[in-house]
């Protein structure tokens, strides 16, 4: 696996029945590529949290995953409302998810902190009313 493999997904807004499809597909493709299970687990958790956030908060968006021999780079870009206070949003337990989302078992305020915890690098670029782009990297080696 010398080249970079690029995977692209569109996340539909407000569709909880399909939430996680991109993450599941990435997981299966990483398995096929022979990536180590602990690395796949980290990517799966971080990507799913990001995907769910896009469904809940951002009216969907685009996910790009680049798989290289050294690392897996995930870019999640949305045109949602943006994050007003990143440090507050990063705090475990802080959530702005509405009640109907909480009734599905989400909204515990763990999303961004899980993404940070399970990746080796995470960057958030956000602008109110414009959108948010999150870049995460998990090292393969």
């Amino acid at each position: 696996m010398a080249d970079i493999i690029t995977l692209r997904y569109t996340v539909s807004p407000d569709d909880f029945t399909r939430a996680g499809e991109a993450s599941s597909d990435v997981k299966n493709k990483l398995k096929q590529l022979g990536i180590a299970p602990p690395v796949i687990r980290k990517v799966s958790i971080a990507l799913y949290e990001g995907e769910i956030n896009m469904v809940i908060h951002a009216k969907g968006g685009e996910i790009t995953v680049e798989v290289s021999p050294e690392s897996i780079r995930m870019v999640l870009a949305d045109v949602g409302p943006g994050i007003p206070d990143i440090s507050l949003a990063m705090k475990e337990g802080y959530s702005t998810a509405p009640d109907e989302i909480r009734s599905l078992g989400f909204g515990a305020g763990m999303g961004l902190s899980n993404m940070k915890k399970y990746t080796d690098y995470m960057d958030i670029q956000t602008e109110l009313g414009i959108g948010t782009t999150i870049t995460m990297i998990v090292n393969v080696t």
Partner: protein
Amino acid sequence: MTVQDLTAQKEFVPVHVGKTADREITKTFCCDLLSIAMGKAPEGCAWITVMANMNTLAVASLADAACIVLAEDVHLDETALQKAAEQDISVFETKLPIFEAALLVYRKINGE
């Protein structure tokens, strides 16, 4: 103890047990908040929960749980059942409360 071994437990009704039936269950994990389960469910665990929806299946698959045990007589709907079969995620249902279901799995894991 494997997922297959759980099928012999009369309190647990197998909803779907697929190709991963021989998978070893390493731990017992109880949680109903999917965001917490996503980050903390140990790989290879039996995840006991009352949260029975499509997202439960996604979290179990992505967190690499060995199986889901739905406690308190909750059930997956038809669409979720289909997804469990499609994605080959092992799911059991039980009338037991979460604690009792978890204790039962825990004892089996520990050979009691």
